[in-house]
């Protein structure tokens, strides 16, 4: 919290600096006036800061995401810049070429934006509603589980496993996502459960 404060103070200072230069610019005429425009306005003044950590490697550098708007009702937030968090003990504000370009990941052209479905033999994806997609997935899972669930092995030992469907978990989802995923997947008896640690 303390750091948040100090950061805001910095922002005020920045704002003041800008104000100062703006005022300074007024006095000018002719060539000097244009000189006042030499310095591009500091683009982060009054953006909304959100703290995050880099989603790439496990150094987990602290980043600050600078968002459009001030969280007011009608301002739709959008991240316009991402920079290292100077308070973070590990990266102390630095970022690697990937972290420094995180903004382009957030706004990548090739991000998934709508659920898509591709039927057997089809050549292309087509959009599908969340509802239809999720219903269909649940149906497919249940049918497969009901058909292939193994309650007991040959020796009559209770094994309660489901081997015909598998789940590959990520490498960058949150612990909270991971735990919820674990609960759901294990409760169905899935054993083919793995993550990206191996590769």
């Amino acid at each position, binding site marked *: 919290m303390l750091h948040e404060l100090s950061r805001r103070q910095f922002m005020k200072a920045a704002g003041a600096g800008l104000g*100062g230069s703006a005022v300074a610019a007024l*006095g000018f005429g002719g060539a*000097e006036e244009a000189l006042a425009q*030499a*310095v591009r306005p500091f683009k982060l003044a009054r953006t909304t800061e959100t703290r995050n950590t880099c989603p790439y490697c496990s150094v987990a550098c602290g980043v600050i995401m600078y968002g459009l708007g001030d969280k007011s009702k009608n301002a739709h937030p959008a991240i316009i810049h991402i*920079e290292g968090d100077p308070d973070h003990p590990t990266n102390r504000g630095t*970022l690697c070429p990937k972290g*420094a370009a995180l903004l382009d990941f957030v706004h990548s052209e090739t991000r998934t934006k709508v659920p898509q479905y591709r039927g057997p033999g089809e050549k292309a994806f087509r959009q599908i509603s969340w509802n239809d997609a999720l219903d269909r997935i649940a149906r497919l899972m249940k049918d497969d589980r009901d058909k292939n669930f193994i309650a007991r092995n040959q020796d009559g030992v209770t094994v309660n496993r489901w081997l015909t469907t598998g789940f590959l978990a990520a490498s960058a989802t949150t612990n909270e996502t991971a735990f919820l995923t674990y609960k759901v997947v294990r409760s169905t008896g899935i054993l083919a459960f793995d993550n990206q640690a191996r590769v």
Partner: protein
Amino acid sequence: MGLQSQDFARISATNFRPPDVRHDFEVAKLIDVSKCIGCKACQAACLEWNNLREEIGINRGVYDNPHDLTPNTWTLMRFTEWENQESGNLEWLIRKDGCMHCADPGCLKACPSPGAIVQYNNGIVDFVSEHCIGCGYCVKGCPFNIPRISQADHKAYKCTLCSDRVSVGQAPACAKACPTGAIVFGTKQAMLDHAQGRITDLKSRGFKNAGIYDPPGVGGTHVMYVLHHADRPQLYANLPENPRISQVVELWKGLTKYAGMAAVGFAAAFAFVHATIARRNDVSRAEDREAEHLIDEEAERGRQA
């Protein structure tokens, strides 16, 4: 920093000399090549901070991408693989190329457009697009081949040392990002001191020619290098050994400019004076008459011939 004229040390193509009474801290960026891993974080940070996007190129068998500075690429890692005969070791020399922010900027000297290139008291040399006329003179003025002219808007572009960040007390984007601290930013003095520490460390590791690159030929720079082989800067992707503004440019922007103006002015004046004091060179009546005779005679001859 405010932006009154007092904050300018130099302004291109103008006789208006900034009073240079207000003293700002001279800032500098120190690039410690011996710490650089060539990760290109500085390139990414530069593109992101300045909202620039370079086009996606191809691989040409080297790590350098893009392959050269462009109007959108203001800084660039240049990779050199060098076999050190002395030590028998391979050395991968990686230099961050970009504007050196010379104390005596050749671009500014060459620029014909008032206020298109300015130097703040803090040492930053900045291009002011609004006044840039796209003539490319700065390219000729620069001893480091840095400025690039955009074919889109015919304006010159280069590293601004993030003058917008520095103006609110922040370090340039590349310096902030640099993971290994190969790029550091501060007052010029602080950077010089920091460099000394690095040089001592490098010497202790056997780089006996380690040193700083702050070329006096251009009055020193506000972007400096620590080199393990300061005696051979050209090893680092042809970093000039003793850069200075080209003599040709000096002559063009110096003597020629004044002598030329003088000569023309003098000639014009002389012509004027002579025309007024000298006897009028006019045709006399007599000559008119003699012309008639001559015409008659010649016309006659003409007829006979």
